[in-house]
Every structure is written in C-alpha cells, then in structure tokens.
C-alpha cells in the first residue's frame, strides 16, 4: 500500500486474544473529487523500533 500513512499508537499492557475481532471506526470526510479508498493496518511493533525511529528523526 502506498500513500502517506498516519499512525496512532499505544503500549499494550495485556496480551491480545488470538483470533478475535478487531473493530476500527473512523469519522471521515473527503471534500471534492475524487473519492478515495482508505486502508488501515493494525501493527504490532517492538518498543525498540519506536525509539530507534524517533532518534533517527531527531538526527535529521
């Protein structure tokens, strides 16, 4: 998938239950043509990846 992703994150305090339903609800609008297809992904990331990315950003 392309496009510029925006991400929202939290640190989990519990283990997620396998094979259970994930619901995502978003309030969206798109003014003017064209209509767009919005894709979402739910990701699991090691905390160290966030730290490394933040440090890299600050190095720029």
């Amino acid at each position, binding site marked *: *998938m*392309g*496009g*510029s*992703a*925006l*991400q*929202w*994150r*939290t*640190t*989990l*305090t*519990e*283990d*997620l*239950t*396998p*094979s*259970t*339903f*994930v*619901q*995502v*609800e*978003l*309030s*969206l*609008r*798109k*003014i*003017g*043509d*064209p*209509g*767009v*297809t*919005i*894709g*979402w*992904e*739910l*990701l*699991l*990331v*090691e*905390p160290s*990846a*966030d730290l490394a*990315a*933040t440090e*890299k*950003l600050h190095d720029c």
Partner: protein
Amino acid sequence: MGLQIKARPFVGHWTMLLIVAAGCGSSEMPMEPPLVTAPAPPVLTGTVLAVDSFFVPATQTNFTVDQYSSGGTLPPDVGPTAGKLLILSVRDISRPDIVCTGGIGGSNCAIIVALPTRDEGFVSVQSESGRTPYFLHSTYRLEIDPDPA
C-alpha cells in the same frame, strides 16, 4: 483484502477539524484554515495483525461526515503482546503517490474529523480482561479515554 463498510451519514456543524488522514492533490475547493496539530510521529512497520479498507465518496460540502466501521480478525498465533506497541496505520491507498504530512488548507485530502459529541474514531481489541476501545487522539496516541472534542 476484505471490505466491510457500514457508513452512517452524519450531517451537522462542528468546529474542530483535526487530522489529515492521507492523500493530497490539487483542488480549488474552499477549506477551513489549517489547524495546528501535534507533529506526526515517524512511521513504523511491524507485524500486521489485521488489515482492511473502505471507500470514502467525495462530498461537495464541509458539513458531511460519514462514520465507517471496518473490521478484521487477529491471527491465531498472535503471541505475547504485552509491552509491545499497538499501531493503527491509516492511509489513502487509492493515491499512493500523494504525500500529505499535515494541514488541510487548500488540500484535497481525506480527513479524519472529531464530531462534537465524540472522538474521531477508535480501534477495539480483545484481551484477557475484556474488550477495550482505544480512541484516536490528536496527539497520535491511542487512549482508553475519548479525546474531548
């Protein structure tokens, strides 16, 4: 990629317009002034737990917001997750060449909107203690408490 759309049109007026979701282009449409939001954190990649998409039709007014409910299923081998980051990544997959980093003035971006009586969205997951909705905040954090609109 499955597609599950349950749009519930909402028509009204609100003053808080928060976040550029994804995708810009050229447009002559009049828009509200860009709002100052928290800088977007760096984009991360990781293990994909669930994925889906839905179509957002174009509107011609500033006063229409649709709520889209979409879903997926966690993998059976999700493994231990406590202490790890849960990230909801949203983008415009119909215009992958478009970059939109924030600010909506004069843009042709799909936007995520906070309604007057509620947050701009949530992701709900199941854990041992029950089902937890994590609400999208303007700080790009997922929080258990809704973002005050």
